[in-house]
């Protein structure tokens, strides 16, 4: 299973980023062999709109089954849901590794829908 963590850096030691759509990178862990890949999301930093939708496509294209981020808005959730990706939220201000720990321990809640409003509502 592949799990994507939103991050501002490019390794497990990098800070976990609470924003989904406008995080710099996704750190993707494959728990079958503990391999790590980095999915670029920098194109979204300056997106006028729809960053969450584009980020959701980026992780879907990377073939992930789960996303761990701080929050998830309605459009991002709808897109992730359509791709069959589960969304977990994490309050951590630590590293991606800390968030991974919490995920493995089953401490992170899974979202049934968006947990924040869209920017236009």
């Amino acid at each position, binding site marked *: 299973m592949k799990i994507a963590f939103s991050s501002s850096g490019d390794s497990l030691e990098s800070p976990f980023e609470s924003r989904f759509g406008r995080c710099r990178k996704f750190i993707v862990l494959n728990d079958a062999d503990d391999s790590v890949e980095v999915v670029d999301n920098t194109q979204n930093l300056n997106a006028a709109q*729809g960053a969450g939708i*584009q980020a959701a*496509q980026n992780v*879907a294209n990377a073939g992930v089954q789960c996303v761990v981020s701080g929050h998830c808005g309605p*459009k991002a959730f709808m*897109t992730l849901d*359509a791709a069959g990706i589960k969304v977990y939220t994490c309050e951590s201000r630590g590293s991606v590794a800390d968030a991974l720990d919490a995920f493995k321990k089953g401490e992170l809640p899974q979202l049934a829908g968006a947990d924040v409003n869209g920017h236009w509502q």
Partner: protein
Amino acid sequence: MKVAVASGKGGTGKTTLSVALALSVEEPVSLLDCDVEEPNCHLFLPKHEPMQTREVFVPVPHIDESLCDNCGACARFCQFNAIASLGVKTLVFSDLCHSCGGCAKICPKGAITEMDKLIGKIGSFRIGELFFAGGTLDVGQPISPPLIKEVLKSVPGSRDGLVIVDSPPGTSCPMVAAVSEADFVILVTEPTPFGLHDLKIAVETIREIRKPHCVVINRCDSGDDRVEQYCDKQGIQIALKIPDSRNMAVAYSQGKTMLDAMPEMRPGLESMINNVILQQKRK
């Protein structure tokens, strides 16, 4: 001839000035309320016949799922992230769509057609020689320029003469859409640090799209003289100064106009608009 009344900062008196200008000219005049997110010109106009309204639509993509093979060409083409392609499904977010029509053209399967989406309405009426039209964007619609452009088109073809456009505040797409067809732009500001800051951005925007312009300072005896210094330095004419007036505020709260509260402003308004018209005719 179209004259747009705009500003950077909100609440500087665009509507107050637009309505007063429209009511102070004797000739046939059209007043267009392009502040479609908060239209309010009509509140200050004299008693009028009921508004005639029409609905405004924009085209947005509709995907025929029986033809779509989720190839993703449309999502890659869309610069506004209004389409998401996930290999197994293609989603349309119509409130992000800018109605360019590109997705329908580029779809290799012909699976995308454009369908009308209601975004707002335009109301219009006449009072004697005055024609009024104003747009109202539906609540929740984030994109206003298509409606603003429709409002600009609503002056009956048979009418010539002066058109006054009350623009939305700011300097982003809605403001640019409202002033885009203007022959002349009047920038309303106030002599405060905020007023000056946003005036500078508005001047930069108006220069970028090459529109002749002047400045009107509202509540001119409040604040300081930095707006005047700036205009002086930049060579921008200050066409009118409107004093700070409690009477004006009271009249505004009762739906009355500047001409009711400060009749002494009428000659200044008339000469400003006549100068603008004269200046443009000389070109």
